C-alpha cells in the first residue's frame, strides 16, 4: 500500500493526535454522555486506520507493533472479567463501588445537573477496560488486513511483504 501525497500526510500529522484524545474522552465519560467503551475504542482505532492509509502499511508497521496490541487486548479483557468477579461477594457483576464513597463512589444527584464524573462505580472502569480491548482489537484487525494488500495470485511470485 503506497503512501499518499504530502497534503494528506501533513493533515494526518495534525489530526490523528486529536482523534485519539477525542476517542479516550468518549471512553472515559461513558456514564454521563452518549458513548462508552466500544464507541470510543472505535474512534481511536479509526485514528490508526487514518495513519495506515496516509503513510502506507510498511512504514506504519514499524511504529505500531502487533504484539503490544495483543498484550493490551488481553490486559483489557482480563481487567473486565476481574471487575466482574470482584462483585462475587453479592452477585456476579454487582456494582460494588456505586454509592460507597470510595473510588467513583459519589451519590448521583437526581434531576437536572451538569453530571459528576466521580459517580457510577464500576461502570467507568469497565468502560476503560472495554475501550482498551476494542481499540487494540480493531487496531490488530486493521493492521493485519492491510498486510493482505500484498497478496497476489498463487501462480505468480508473491511480492516482498514484511
Amino acid at each position, binding site marked *: 500500500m503506497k503512501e499518499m501525497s504530502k497534503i494528506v500526510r501533513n493533515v494526518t500529522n495534525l489530526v490523528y493526535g486529536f482523534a485519539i484524545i477525542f476517542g479516550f474522552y468518549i471512553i472515559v465519560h461513558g456514564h454521563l454522555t452518549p458513548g462508552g467503551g466500544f464507541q470510543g475504542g472505535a474512534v481511536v482505532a479509526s485514528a490508526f486506520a487514518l495513519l495506515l492509509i496516509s503513510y502506507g502499511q510498511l512504514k506504519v508497521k514499524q511504529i505500531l507493533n502487533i504484539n503490544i496490541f495483543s498484550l493490551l487486548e488481553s490486559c483489557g479483557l*482480563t481487567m473486565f472479567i476481574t471487575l466482574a468477579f470482584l462483585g462475587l461477594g453479592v452477585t456476579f457483576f454487582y456494582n460494588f463501588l456505586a454509592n460507597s464513597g470510595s473510588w467513583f463512589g459519589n451519590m448521583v444527584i437526581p434531576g437536572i445537573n451538569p453530571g459528576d464524573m466521580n459517580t457510577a462505580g464500576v461502570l467507568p472502569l469497565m468502560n476503560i477496560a472495554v475501550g482498551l480491548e476494542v481499540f487494540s482489537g480493531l487496531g490488530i484487525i486493521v493492521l493485519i488486513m492491510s498486510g493482505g494488500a500484498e497478496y497476489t495470485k498463487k501462480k505468480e511470485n508473491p511480492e516482498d511483504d514484511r
Partner: protein
Amino acid sequence: MKLFDHIPALIIAVPLLAAFLAPLIGKINKKATGVFATLALGLSLIFTIILAVKVLSVGPQIYVFGEKSPFLTLPSGLKFPIRIMFQVDAMGIFMGLITALVSFLGAIYSLAFIDKKDGLDSYYSLLLLLTVSMFGMELTGDLFNFFVFLEIASMASVSLICYRGTNLGEPVEAGFKYMVVSSISALMVLFAVGIFYGEYDVLNIAAIASVIKYSQLDKIALGILVSVLAMKAGAVPVHMWTPDAYSEAPAPITMILVAASQASLYAIFRVVFSLYNITLNTLAVGWIIIIFGLLSMFIGVTMAIIQKDIKRLMAYHAISQTGYMLLGVGVGLAVLANPISLSQYGITAMEGGIFHIMNHAMYKGLLFLTAGALFFRTGTRDLDKMGGLAHYMKYTTIFFIIGAAAIAGLPPFNGFASKLLIYESVYKFNPLLSIIAMLVSILTLASFVKVFHSAFLGPKLPQFKEVKEVPRSMVLAMAVLSCIIIFFGLFPDLIVKNLVHPAVMSLVEQFKYTSIVLGGM
C-alpha cells in the same frame, strides 16, 4: 453456603476467565495453554455436576446478575423482571451436562491431536469461548442474552473451522458457508426478539410466557424462530452447511460443534414449549416439526451411503439422527393439548427424543474422534485409500465398533434404548412414521458396515507400515465416551427416570417455569 448459590454464574465465569488469560499464558509457554484450558473445563464439569444434583433434588434454580441477592427477580415495586438472569431447570442442566462433558473430552483430545505450534493459544481461547457460549445458550432465561451467546458461538466455531486454513483452501470455504448461514439465522433471531419486545416490553422468557396471546405478530415470530433455529441445528431443508463444516473442522472441534447444534435444537424446544405452550395450534406446529424430522432422517441417511470421505459421511448421519430427535419431540408437541394421549404416548415420545440428544452427542462424538484418530495417523480421510487398519490400531477399531453399533441401534448400547422409546410411542401416533424410522435405522447400519469394511478390514497395506496406535490422551477421551455409551445402554432406566423424565416434565409444565420467576422468590 455462599459459594453454592453462585454456581450458575461460575459455570460460565471460570471458562471465560480462562479464555481471556489463555493468550497471556501462551506468551510464556505454549504447551501450558492446553493444560490450563483442560483444568478450567474440568472445573466447569464439576460445577455442572453439583448444580445438576441440586436442580434435580430441590427444583429449578435462578441467578440474577448484578442484583443485591442472586434470587431477587422482582425488586421492590416492579411487576416484571428487569435484569438478565439464568434460569436452570431440569432440561437446561441436561443440555449443560452434555456440553460440559463434550468440551472437557474435546480439550483432552486436543492436547495430542493439534500439532500446529503457532496458533495454539488462540485455539484454546476459542474453544473455551465456544464452551462459554454453549453454556450460556442452555442456561439462560432471557431472549436477548440467548441471541448474544448464539452469535459468540457462531463466531468462535467459524474461527475454529478455519483453523487448518493457513495451508489448505477447503476449510476456509466451509467456514465462509457456515458464517453466512450463522449470520442470517442470528439476525433473524434478533428480529423475532425485537417483535416480542415491541409487543410486550419485556425480554425475559418467563415474563413473556405469562402474558403471551397468540396474535398475528406472535405467529410471524414463531415461524421465524423455528425455521432459523432449525437452520442452525442442521435439519433438512436448510442443512447444506453441515457436511462441509463438520468434515473440514479438526476432529475434537467437530464433536463440540455437534453439541452446539444441539443447543440450537434445545432452543427450538424451549421456544415452542416454555414460551408458547398450548396457546399455539399444537397439532399443526407438531406436524411441521415431524415433517422436518422425517425429511432429515431420510435425506441424511441416503446422502450418507454414497460418501467417500469418512467425516462427511458421519456428518450426514448427524443430520439423520437430528431427525430422530425432531420426530420424537414433534409427536409430543402434537398431542400436548390432549391430556389422555399425552400421558399414554406423548411423554414417552418426548423422553425418547430428548434421551436421543444425549446418546447422539456421546456416540457421534466417539465416531468423530475415531475418524480424527485415523486422519492423525494416516493423513487421509478418503475411504478408498484406507484399508487394513485394524491390524495396526486395535483400540481405535474397538471404539469404532462400539460407536457404530450404538448409532445403528443394536441392543446392549444406548442407541437402542432411545430408539425403542421413539418407535413404540410414535407407532401409536401414526404407524407410518415409525416404519420410516426403522427403515432409516437399517440404512444407518448398512453405511457403517461399509465404513468398517473399507477402513479397518482387509489385508495390511504397504503404505501404512509405520502406523501405530494414537497417543494416550486421545485413547483416554475415546475410552471415557465408550464407557458412558455402555453404561447408558445397560442401565437406561436409571437415566430416563432421573435425568430425562424431569427434563420432559419441566418442558411440558409451563406454569412451573413462569412461577419461579414471577412468584417472586
